[in-house]
């Protein structure tokens, strides 16, 4: 069992190290940022070298079996490492109940993300004294007693909860999530950030296991969201993304006691307008069922609300959508896209599509190709259907041959490339505002994104531009990216 280590020369604690593996989506990345904060508050420091770590953790993903297999192979290795040194292992994130039961036998700690604020307490109960816990334990108990008595969960900080008290708070999952959201994330960038606004899913798409791993939809209080957003903007963040499994069903679980999603967007838009702040606000991932005309109208009205919409299609065939339990028809989807084109003609459109879903016929796939032609996406994340353990469709035969899925994937990708290339060519010669993100893989170039999240690279070695808005002129277009030259002088630009 790991113990608090003292450096004999200095008589000061040598900080213990953690190694964290994050699998899966942006939501998991965002959760990881909060896990890091809690570990830092306990006095751990990060290490890329898992051999050097005292605590090893995985933020798991259950979307595909492959991701879960990774967890099993990692813990097998870590448990072997325990023969040589004292270690604590933990797993959190998206875990199905059946896997959770198995993980309990393999990992030292298994907890859901909403239990993150209790993590230091779990470590303490495990017998590990951390520098932070030594200093804070006493203060924590006092604060905790006061907060629980007053039902003020927001006052509780991650380090200050004993398990007995935690039980009281566990009685209310919404309060549990509130406490999780109160953990300030350790941002991995100083100009791009995620703000989780909603957790869980009530939609039960048959191909997806999220309702079973993350539970029901819970919305974060809007005052906290706005406070986090304002703090990020004040710190100079330029690209902020509201995150949720069904981001646009925000507020529905609170039954008129909370802002609706369009109201939240409007509040952010108003803040941008009044403060004259310079940032782009995105959101992902919305569900077409809850994509109202009002959401689109609000986006069209405020400059800080980025003109880029990610609208998962999954299939262009009503029969397949029905079996996917998507709860929207092509007619509904078409109406949304038409409204976007009408109110925000400059908006770029991204999507997610699954090819080869159980029972998908050639004709049904052709309907998805037609949808691709009709909606002319700028980007589509196309996946070949694979059985996701725990999802309803895992009980059905995965009956579309692998080769057929592959062929459909390539055919659809070709369609995407055709339409995105056509669009990109229309931008040649235009000036655009971009957010510079990093050095490009090509030497002497920087990589940037437009407001519409189109990928651009331009020749420059001025690394001070990274994290800044700048203007470029498009010089050439490829199917999924653009080349540009840096503009010296500001002028009127186009949004895309």
């Amino acid at each position, binding site marked *: 069992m790991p113990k608090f280590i003292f450096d004999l020369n200095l008589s000061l604690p040598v900080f213990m190290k953690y190694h964290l593996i994050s699998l899966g989506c942006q939501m998991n990345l965002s959760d990881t940022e909060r896990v890091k904060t809690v570990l830092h508050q306990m006095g751990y420091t990060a290490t890329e070298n898992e051999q050097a770590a005292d605590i090893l953790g995985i933020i798991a993903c259950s979307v595909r079996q492959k991701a879960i297999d990774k967890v099993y192979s990692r813990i097998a290795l870590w448990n072997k490492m325990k023969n040589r040194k004292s270690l604590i292992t933990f797993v959190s994130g998206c875990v199905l109940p059946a896997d959770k039961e198995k993980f309990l036998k393999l990992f030292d700690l298994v907890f859901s993300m909403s239990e993150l604020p209790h993590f230091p307490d779990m470590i303490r109960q495990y017998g590990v004294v951390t520098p932070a816990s030594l200093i804070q334990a006493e203060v924590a108990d006092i604060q905790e007693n006061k907060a629980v008595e007053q039902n003020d969960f927001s006052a509780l900080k991650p380090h200050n909860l004993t398990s007995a008290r935690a039980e009281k708070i566990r009685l*209310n999952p919404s309060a549990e999530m509130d406490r999780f959201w109160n953990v300030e994330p350790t941002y991995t960038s100083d100009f791009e950030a995620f703000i989780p606004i909603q957790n869980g899913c009530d939609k*039960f798409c048959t191909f997806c296991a999220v309702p079973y791993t993350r539970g*029901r939809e819970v919305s974060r209080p809007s005052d906290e969201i706005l406070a986090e957003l304002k703090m990020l903007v004040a710190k100079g963040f330029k690209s902020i993304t509201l995150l949720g499994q069904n981001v646009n069903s925000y507020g529905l679980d609170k039954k008129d006691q909370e802002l609706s999603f369009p109201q939240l967007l409007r509040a952010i838009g108003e803040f941008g307008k009044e403060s004259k702040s310079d940032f782009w606000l995105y959101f992902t991932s919305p569900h077409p069922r809850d994509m109202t005309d009002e959401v689109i109208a609000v986006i069209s009205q405020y400059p800080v609300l980025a003109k880029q919409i990610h609208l998962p299609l999954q299939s262009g065939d009503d029969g397949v959508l*029905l079996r996917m339990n998507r709860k929207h028809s*092509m*007619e509904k989807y078409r109406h949304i896209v038409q409204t976007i084109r009408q109110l925000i003609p400059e908006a770029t459109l991204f999507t997610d599509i699954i090819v080869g879903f159980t029972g998908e016929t050639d004709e049904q796939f052709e309907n998805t190709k037609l949808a691709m032609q009709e909606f002319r996406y700028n980007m589509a994340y196309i996946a070949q259907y694979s059985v996701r353990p725990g999802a*309803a469709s895992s009980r059905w035969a995965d009956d579309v041959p692998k080769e057929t899925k592959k062929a459909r994937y390539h055919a659809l990708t070709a369609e995407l490339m055709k339409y995105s290339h056509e669009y990109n060519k229309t931008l040649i010669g235009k000036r655009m505002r971009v957010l510079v993100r990093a050095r490009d893989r090509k030497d002497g170039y920087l990589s940037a994104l437009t407001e519409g999240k189109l990928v651009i690279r331009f020749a420059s070695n001025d690394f001070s531009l990274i994290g800044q808005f700048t203007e470029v002129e498009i010089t050439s277009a490829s199917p999924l990216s653009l080349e540009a030259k840096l503009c010296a002088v500001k002028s009127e630009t186009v949004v895309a």
Partner: protein
Amino acid sequence: MMNSDFDSLHQVLSLRMLTPTAYVLRVERKGLEFKAGQHLLLGRNGSIESREYSVYSTESDDFFEVLVKEVDDGLVSKQLKQLKAGDKVKLDGPLGFFTLEPETIANGKFLFIATGTGISPFHSMVKSYPGLNYRLLHGVRYSNEAYDRQDYEPSRYILCTTGDQGGDFYGRVTDFLRKNPVLKDTHCFLCGNFNMIHEAFEILEQQGVPSSQVHAEVYF
């Protein structure tokens, strides 16, 4: 109403056997809001496993009922069958969007197509909204699986059987559908197994029913 972990334990009120393998489990409702057609996640207290079950009871009942068929290699359906009045179950929900649009209830024409225990949401709808203009096709293997048939108006309920000839129609619900085309302005709700939904949707499409009027809840 928010359902906390504590509140998620509901007491079992009764268990009523309909056939040797199908039963209706009645549990406390605890004032939870519910619309006919929604489902619950149910599991035995203390078990990590839970399953989705459409609510069988009505919007006005002060309890929840679910219709469960014991599955040979199933886990939860067997566990729930062992429950007795006073035991506790874990309950999450009600959830889902397989519900009737309020503006269609008074004057709309409905076709409900179910296989097996997929009849649950329709039982709830029919009993929640007296006067509903519906026709219910219920596909089962044997005629003794016409669960609570007396709860439907005889002229509106058509039992389709494939294992014996004791029903109103010998054959599958989709065979009946092919022989009896549906009017285009009918609101069609399908609940049951994957293959039935796949086939029924195609038939309805061929008969000219707009896909926006076809709703499905896929069971297995």
